C-alpha cells in the first residue's frame, strides 16, 4: 500500500511516500526549487518520491494532508472578526492565499496529481505527534507537540500505545510558545523561520535578566500550560505581531542590520530560559499523567536543542525521541503514518534509523558532470581509500564538502550533504562563518562523534543521531575544540553509529586514527541557500566558496 503525505502552504513544504508503513522517500521542496523554507505545493518533491519507487500517482492508494484547512480557516476568520477593524488590512492580504491555494487543497491535489481517490486530512498536531511516535522505537509513549499554531492548537500532550494516539490536552491559539519565540525573533531583528536558531545561539551570550518582563508576557502554570498576555500583542493587525506596549516593556526593537547590543542578547537569553522552563514543566506534567518512561517530541519548538537537552537531562523520562524534521516538513510523514496505523489499523513496526530519505545520484551521473565541467578529480577505488584520504585532508586543516548517498530529510545535514572540518582548529569557526557559510560570527558549529566515544568527550551518553541535543565537554576537553564549542562550553552533537551511516562512521574513525579525536565539525552543505541536493549544486558551491575539497561519492575533486 502506497500513501503519499503532503505538507505545504505555510513553510517547509514537503512530501513523503510510505510503502506498507515504511517511509521510502521524503524531501523538502526547498531543495528542488532552491527557495529556502519554500511553502509552495511540493510538486517536485512529490515527483521525486514517486520516481524513487518507479510509480505514478495511479499507483497511490491514499494521499494525506498534514492539517485540516477548513478548521484553520475558521480560526483565521474568527480571529479577524474579533480584531476588526484593525485586522482588515491583514484580512485583505491573506484572503487571496486562502482562496487560491489553501481552501482548494483537495482540488489542487486531484488536479496536480491526477488523483481521484480519497484525500485524508489529519489535524496539524496529530500529524506532529504521529511523525514522532510512529518513527520512534517505542510501543507506548507520552507525546508533546509544541509549535506556532496548527488549526487551533499550538501545543498538545498525549499518550500513544501500539497503533493509537490520544491527544489528552491542548493549548489553543493565540496562546502559543512557538509564536512567542517567533515574535521575539522578529523583534530582535531576525527573520521568522530562519532566525529562531540564531536567537537560541545568541541567548548563550546573554543573561536572563528580563524574566520579570517575560512574566508579564506569558503566565506559566506548574503543569506547563500558559496564557499569553494579549495586551502586548496585535495578532493579524499588520506585519508585526508585537505592539507599542510590548516595546514599552522591552525597549525599541532591533532593525535587521543594526549591531547586536548586550540588551538584545539578554532578551534572547530570557526568552530561551522561559521557553525551556515551559517545555520542562510540560514534559514533567506529561510524565506525571502518563507514567510512561518514553517521550516523543515534535513541532518546530523541538528544534531548540538547548530545550531538548534539558528535557533529556532534567525530566524522569528514560528515553526521548525526536525525529529530524520535527517542524512542519516532518508532518507530511506524520499524516501518512497516522492514516496507515491509526485509521487503517495497521500494526506499528517502523523505526527511523537515519534521515537519508532524499535523492541519490549514481557514479556515472556524477562523473559525467565532473568530466564535462573539466574538473580536476580522482576516483577512489574503495570506500577505505576515500575515507583515508579525506580524513588526512581534514587532519591537515582542510575544509571538505562531503556529498554521499541520499539527501537528508529535515533541516540538519547529518553526514550526507555536509561541510566537514577539524574541530580542534582555533581559526576554523571564523573562517567557515566568514568565507563559506557567510553568516553571523556568534553562531556555533555542531559536531559528529562516534557513538561509542561520546561520553569520553562529553557529559552525555545518549543517542543523538539527528543533532538535536547539546552537551558540555568533559572537564579535560574544555577549550580543546574551539571550532565546535559555543560560548557556554557546549556543543551541538550528532552521535554516529556504523549501522546508521557506514561511510561517515568510517571517515570519523579514520580521522580518529590520525588525531585520536573521534569527531568532526559538521555543518550543512550550503552557503545562504537551501542545503544542496544535486551533484551540480554541490559542485557550484564548491567552486564559488573556499572549500578545499569536494568528496562526492567515490570522487575527490580539487581546485
Amino acid at each position: 500500500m502506497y500513501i503519499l503525505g503532503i505538507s505545504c502552504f505555510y513553510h517547509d513544504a514537503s512530501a513523503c511516500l510510505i510503502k506498507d508503513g515504511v517511509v521510502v522517500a521524503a524531501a523538502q521542496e526547498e531543495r528542488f526549487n532552491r527557495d529556502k523554507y519554500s511553502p509552495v505545493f511540493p510538486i517536485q518533491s512529490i515527483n521525486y518520491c514517486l520516481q524513487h519507487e518507479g510509480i505514478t500517482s495511479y499507483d497511490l492508494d491514499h494521499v494525506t494532508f498534514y492539517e485540516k484547512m477548513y478548521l484553520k480557516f475558521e480560526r483565521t476568520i474568527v480571529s479577524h472578526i474579533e480584531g476588526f477593524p484593525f485586522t482588515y488590512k491583514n484580512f485583505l492580504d491573506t484572503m487571496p492565499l486562502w482562496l487560491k491555494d489553501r481552501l482548494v487543497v483537495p482540488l489542487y491535489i486531484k488536479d496536480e496529481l491526477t488523483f481521484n481517490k480519497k484525500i485524508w486530512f489529519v489535524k496539524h498536531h496529530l500529524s506532529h505527534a504521529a511523525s514522532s511516535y510512529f518513527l520512534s522505537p517505542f510501543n507506548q509513549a507520552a507525546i508533546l507537540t509544541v509549535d506556532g499554531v496548527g488549526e487551533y492548537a499550538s501545543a498538545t500532550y498525549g499518550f500513544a500505545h501500539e497503533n493509537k494516539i490520544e491527544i489528552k490536552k491542548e493549548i489553543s491559539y493565540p496562546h502559543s510558545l512557538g509564536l512567542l519565540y517567533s515574535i521575539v525573533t522578529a523583534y530582535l531583528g531576525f527573520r521568522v523561520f530562519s532566525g529562531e536558531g540564531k536567537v537560541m545561539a545568541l541567548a548563550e551570550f546573554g543573561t536572563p535578566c528580563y524574566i520579570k518582563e517575560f512574566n508579564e508576557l506569558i503566565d506559566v502554570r506548574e503543569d506547563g500550560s500558559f496564557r499569553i498576555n494579549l495586551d502586548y500583542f496585535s495578532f493579524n493587525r499588520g506585519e508585526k505581531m508585537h505592539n507599542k506596549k510590548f516595546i514599552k516593556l522591552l525597549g525599541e526593537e532591533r532593525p535587521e542590520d543594526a549591531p547586536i547590543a548586550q540588551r538584545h542578547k539578554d532578551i534572547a537569553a530570557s526568552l530561551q530560559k522561559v521557553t525551556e522552563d515551559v517545555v520542562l514543566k510540560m514534559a514533567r506534567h506529561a510524565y506525571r499523567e502518563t507514567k510512561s518512561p518514553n517521550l516523543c517530541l515534535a513541532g518546530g519548538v523541538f528544534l531548540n536543542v538547548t530545550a531538548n537537552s534539558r528535557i533529556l537531562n532534567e525530566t524522569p523520562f528514560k528515553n526521548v525521541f525526536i525525529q529530524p524534521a520535527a517542524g512542519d516538513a516532518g508532518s507530511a510523514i506524520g499524516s501518512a503514518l497516522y492514516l496507515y496505523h491509526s485509521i487503517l489499523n495497521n500494526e506499528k513496526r517502523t523505526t527511523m534509523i537515519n534521515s537519508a530519505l532524499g535523492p541519490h545520484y549514481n557514479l556515472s551521473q556524477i562523473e559525467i558532470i565532473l568530466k564535462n565541467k573539466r574538473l580536476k578529480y580522482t576516483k577512489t577505488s574503495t570506500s577505505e581509500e576515500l575515507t583515508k584520504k579525506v580524513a588526512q585532508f581534514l587532519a591537515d586543516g582542510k575544509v571538505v564538502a562531503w556529498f554521499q548517498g541520499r539527501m537528508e530529510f529535515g533541516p540538519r545535514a547529518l553526514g550526507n550533504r555536509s561541510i566537514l572540518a577539524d574541530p580542534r582548529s582555533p581559526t576554523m569557526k571564523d573562517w567557515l562563518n566568514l568565507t563559506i557559510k557567510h553568516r553571523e560570527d556568534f553562531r556555533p558549529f555542531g559536531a559528529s562523534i562516534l557513538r561509542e566515544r561520546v561520553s569520553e568527550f562529553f557529559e552525555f551518553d545518549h543517542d543523538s543521531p539527528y543533532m538535536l541535543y547539546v552537551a558540555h565537554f568533559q572537564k579535560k576537553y574544555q577549550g580543546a575544540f574551539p571550532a565546535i564549542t559555543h560560548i557556554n562550553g557546549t556543543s551541538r552533537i550528532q552521535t554516529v553509529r556504523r549501522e546508521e551511516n557506514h561511510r561517515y562512521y568510517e571517515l570519523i574513525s579514520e580521522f580518529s586514527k590520525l588525531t585520536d579525536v573521534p569527531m568532526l565539525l559538521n555543518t550543512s552543505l550550503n552557503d545562504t541557500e537551501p542545503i544542496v541536493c544535486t551533484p551540480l549544486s554541490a559542485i557550484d558551491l564548491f567552486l564559488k566558496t573556499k572549500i578545499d575539497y569536494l568528496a562526492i561519492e567515490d570522487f575527490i575533486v580539487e581546485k
Partner: protein
Amino acid sequence: MEEKRCVECVLVESKPDIIIDEDGVCNVCKNHHASGIDESQEPEYLETDFLKIIDKHRGKGKYDCLCMLSGGKDSTASLYYIKEKYKMNPLVFTFNHGFVPDEHIQSAMKSVEKLGVDWIYFQTDFMKEMFRKIVKTKSKVVICPVCSLWYMLKTYEIAAQWDIPIIISGWTKGQTTSSKKSVMSKCACDQDPVEYSTMANATRDFMNNHVRTDPRYADFPASMEDVLTIARKKYKTKAIVLSPHWFVPSHPDEYVKVIKEKLDWDYPVRSYPKKSTNCDLNFLASKLAVDNYGYSHYHIEMSNLIRMGMITREEAIALLEIDYDKELLNPILEKLDCKMEDIKK
C-alpha cells in the same frame, strides 16, 4: 586542414554556423552558458505534468494514443512506459521507407506482441527516388529531416483516421533543441538553433528545386510546418506529440535495462551512432552531413546531451566514431542505384 572541435561538446567548426573561440569553446556552448539554463538540474516539465496531459484525453476513443515505434531503445521504452506505467491503450505505428533492417522490424514486432497492443506496419519505396536525387544532385540537404516529413505526415494521417489525440514518440531530451512546449505544438519544426541553420536552408532549397518540381512528389510537404498544416486542414487533427523521455529524468542505461528485462529487447548488430537503432540510410545521411558540414544531426543531439549532463564528451565521441568504408556504404548506394563516385566531393 585539421578539424577544430569544441572542447566542451562534439561540434566541429563550420562557418558561419559554428565558430570556435580561442579557448576552444563553440558559440553554441557559449550561448548555453550565457543563457544560464541548466537542463541537468531540473526537467522543464515534471512527470505529473505528463500525467495531466494524457489524462485529459484518456478513454475518449478506441485508442488513447498513437505510439511511433522504430524498434530502437527510445521508442521501445516509450511504448513500454505508455502501456505499463501510464496504463494507456496505444495503437502502434512502425514506418519503413525500405531501408530499415529486418532486425529492427523484428524487434518492434516482438515488443508489440509482448505488450499485446495493436500495430500498424507501413512499408513504402515512395521516397527512394527522392533519396537518390539527394545523392545524384550532391545536395547538401540532410536525408533524415526529409524522411521525417513523410513519416510524421503518415503518423498524423493515422492519428486522424482513428481519432487519436496524442502521438507518443521516443524522442529524447537531446533531440529537442527548442523548448518542449514548442516541440509539442510545432512538432520540432522550428529550425532556429544556429547549429541547424545551414542544414535547414539546404532542406528548403532541395524541397523547392528538386521535390516540388517533380510531379510524383507534388503533394509532398516541404517542411514540418507544411506537415502540421496538412494535419490540421486536410486530416482535421490537432493531435499533440509527446515523449515520456522529456518528463522522466532517467538515463538510457536505466530504461534499456527495463526493456531488456521486460521485452527481451537488445541493441541491433549494426547501427549509427553506436547504441542506437537507426536505419541503413542513416549511415549515408550522417556521412554526407559530416562531409558537408563537419558534423551531423547526431553530433548536435550528442552535444545537447553533454550540455544536459547525460553523457560525457568522451562517450559521445566514442559513440560517434565510425569508419565509412565501401563495405558499409556500397550496399546502401546500390539500393539507390548510385555509386561511391556519386558521393565524392
